[in-house]
């Protein structure tokens, strides 16, 4: 039953980047807010590749670069296209005056964010799982945990990719295996100087690898590698439907990736510190759930807010949390928690990069899924074989080699397939740039 003791203005479920950003926005506006985290501490149930983005983080925590536990500022992005044994790597490197991203360890960084939220007045309740939402007269009125009921004017769901709560109240249906990628990761301990040498960086500088192909050739999956201060995070994410269809154990793929000749020397003699796994929302714009209802809003991974083309997630989480928080502040001012009042959140999202970017890439996954063998199998191999040809020195005349390579493009596969690839690529470009 609702009474004075167990009633607050806003309850936020989930103490990750989305939930914390929402809660701190409310607390700074002088509102009462309870943030419920199911782990022992914020970040203890979270896994990501490795980097947070500076500009969006500054929007929530203006001084985080001085105070937060950061690992390295990223100065280099490498795109590694792995063949079975060879690799083509493109790299972009710049020592930005204002870094674009930093690697962090979630168990440290999320905990720091949660501490900042507490300082701002957020009541943080850890080790508590919300089992159910309390709905009365069509309004979400609070939450039921294992132990008790808490009531509030608004509940914000930032409970992550599995969001059973959004499902409970019908804001979204069940996820299907095409909508998520299963990611496994290992954090491997290496001395700071070894990391600096292997990745050609200074003490506080880092390098990001985005890895295509290798053990994932022909699969809708990507690998990643991030450098931390004294460790390297290496992992991969493969669409769950692909793992199911091909009946693959995710950690077998990771072991193969770790032993690829391009990757193995980078982590050689490292000691495994921690293995982890997590789901990544991959459904994109088409799978974004209903984002609000009477007395409720959804943000972060729970809302499918991941831009998988650019590996962005925490930034969408933080900004969506902030927008939900701002909407809640307005609603509390008017004491109007109706669907109409909270639809302001949707409008704000539509005006932001979040929905705009998701819309830009809405056809991407479908398009690639249609021709995954080609785009993530055949062509990466072909690019590697081009460079193998181009760099070979074997007394065969160059023109002969070129002709042979060009001929292979037309004989490897049917001409009609080439047209289909081309057409899909044009359609995708069109959908990204114009549609």
């Amino acid at each position, binding site marked *: 039953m609702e009474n004075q003791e167990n009633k607050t203005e806003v309850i936020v479920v989930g103490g990750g980047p989305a939930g914390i950003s929402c809660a701190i926005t409310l607390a700074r506006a002088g509102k009462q807010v309870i943030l419920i985290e*199911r*782990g*022992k501490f914020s*970040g*203890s*149930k*979270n*896994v*990501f590749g490795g980097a947070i983005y500076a500009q969006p983080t500054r929007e929530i925590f203006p001084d985080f670069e001085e105070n937060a536990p950061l690992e390295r500022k990223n100065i280099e992005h490498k795109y590694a296209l792995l063949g079975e044994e060879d690799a083509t790597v493109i790299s972009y490197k710049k020592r930005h005056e204002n870094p674009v991203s930093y690697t962090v*360890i*979630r*168990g440290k960084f999320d905990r720091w964010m949660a501490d900042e939220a507490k300082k701002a007045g957020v009541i943080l309740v*850890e*080790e*508590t*799982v919300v*089992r159910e939402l309390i709905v009365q007269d069509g309004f979400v009125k609070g939450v039921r*945990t*294992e132990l008790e009921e808490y009531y509030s004017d608004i509940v914000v769901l930032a409970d992550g*990719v*599995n969001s*059973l709560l959004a499902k409970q109240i019908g804001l979204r249906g*069940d*996820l*299907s*295996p095409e*909508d*998520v990628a*299963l990611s*496994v990761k*290992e*954090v491997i301990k290496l001395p700071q100087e070894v990391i600096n040498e292997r990745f050609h960086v200074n003490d506080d500088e880092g390098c990001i690898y985005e890895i295509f192909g290798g053990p994932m050739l022909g699969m809708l999956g990507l690998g990643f590698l991030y450098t931390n201060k004294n*460790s390297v*995070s290496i992992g991969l994410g493969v669409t*769950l439907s692909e*793992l*199911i269809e091909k*009946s*693959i*154990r*995710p*950690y077998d793929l990771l*072991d193969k990736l770790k032993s690829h000749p391009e990757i193995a020397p980078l982590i050689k003699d490292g000691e*495994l*510190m*921690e*293995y*982890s*796994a*997590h*789901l990544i929302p991959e459904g994109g714009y088409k799978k974004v759930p209903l984002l609000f209802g009477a007395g409720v809003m959804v943000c972060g991974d729970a809302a499918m807010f991941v831009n998988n083309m650019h590996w962005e997630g925490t930034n969408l989480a933080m900004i969506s949390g902030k927008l939900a928080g701002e909407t809640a502040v307005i609603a509390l001012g008017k004491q109007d928690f109706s669907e109409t009042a909270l639809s302001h959140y949707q409008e704000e999202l539509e005006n932001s990069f979040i929905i705009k970017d998701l819309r830009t890439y809405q056809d991407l996954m479908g398009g690639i899924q249609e021709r995954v063998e080609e785009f993530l199998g055949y062509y990466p191999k072909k690019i590697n074989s081009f460079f193998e040809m181009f760099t070979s020195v074997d007394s065969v005349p160059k023109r002969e080699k070129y002709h042979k390579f060009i001929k292979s493009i037309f004989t490897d596969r049917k001409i009609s397939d080439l047209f289909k690839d081309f057409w899909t690529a044009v359609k995708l470009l069109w959908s990204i740039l114009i549609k």
Partner: protein
Amino acid sequence: MSDLEDKLYTVKYTPDTKSHLQPVQECCRVCKSKICTTICPAGVYEWDENMQKLIVNYENCLECGACRIACESASLGWEYPKGTKGVTFKQG
């Protein structure tokens, strides 16, 4: 398998005494793919041919949720462990 054991050895767990994963064994018996035994990143599920039963090593669960979504008959009872239990990632 031993490789996976080495990996899981690095993970900090506070196991509950009761499983938060509840398969419906009648569904498992007729399930052809038993895909949970393959895709689970922690090898939580094992099919015992003699007992005709799905063994659930829930203590090793990484709480990713893949099994729930992958379950062919969508029959797997899945909830988060209690707040004080389950996995604690230190390096996520």
